[in-house]
């Protein structure tokens, strides 16, 4: 069974540009989460989808971040416009029950 996949693996963009990250969860997992790890610090929660609905978006830093999960399958996280402090590793995770399975992450660098 395929694990959680994320695309792209790396992205380098300039401040002010837009970047869209994609996450494909494990097939059949209703729960999809986005997390971010900045500069070797702790991993911070961004938001949680249950199927196509946003269950909890309390961790979204500001309105430059937009997450979608149309159809309840894959999800996208768009950052527009990107700022320097958005740099970090963005992880997606999925679960059916309590154990969350993480994807390999997208390493975003904003210059």
């Amino acid at each position, binding site marked *: 069974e395929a694990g959680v996949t994320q695309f792209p693996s790396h992205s380098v963009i300039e401040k002010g540009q837009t970047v869209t990250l994609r996450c494909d969860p494990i097939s059949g997992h209703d*729960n999809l*989460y986005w*997390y971010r790890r900045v500069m*070797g*610090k*702790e*991993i*911070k*929660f961004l938001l*949680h989808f249950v199927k196509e609905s946003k*269950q*909890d978006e*309390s*961790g979204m830093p500001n309105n430059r971040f937009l997450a979608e999960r149309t159809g309840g399958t894959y999800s996208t996280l768009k950052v527009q416009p990107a700022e320097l402090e958005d740099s970090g590793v963005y*992880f997606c*995770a999925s*679960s059916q*029950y*309590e*154990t*969350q*399975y*993480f*994807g*390999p*992450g997208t390493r975003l660098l904003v210059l």
Partner: protein
Amino acid sequence: GQQVMQIPQYQHVQEGEDFTTYCNSSTTLSNIQWYKQRPGGHPVFLIQLVKSGEVKKQKRLTFQFGEAKKNSSLHITATQTTDVGTYFCAVCYNQGGKLIFGQGTELSVKP
């Protein structure tokens, strides 16, 4: 919001030495999970503890949940170079909800 404090931030050991990382909370936790992230990798679920005073073992790893359910520890006996990585504790909210991570302990093992 609820926080989980994790110490130490870094630990350098000689191969064969033991290693322990600790997580503490000021409030009672419903559960505690442990994850391992290899350098350049993604968090991988190790275990979940839910009962007061619970102790679980996985080969050389011993996980404990305090009697008051406010602290937890991960102990590795006789470290190996394959143990290198960052170990995170995390609390899962609302069964299947977001994970709140500790700051992580980065373990390096000198052969």
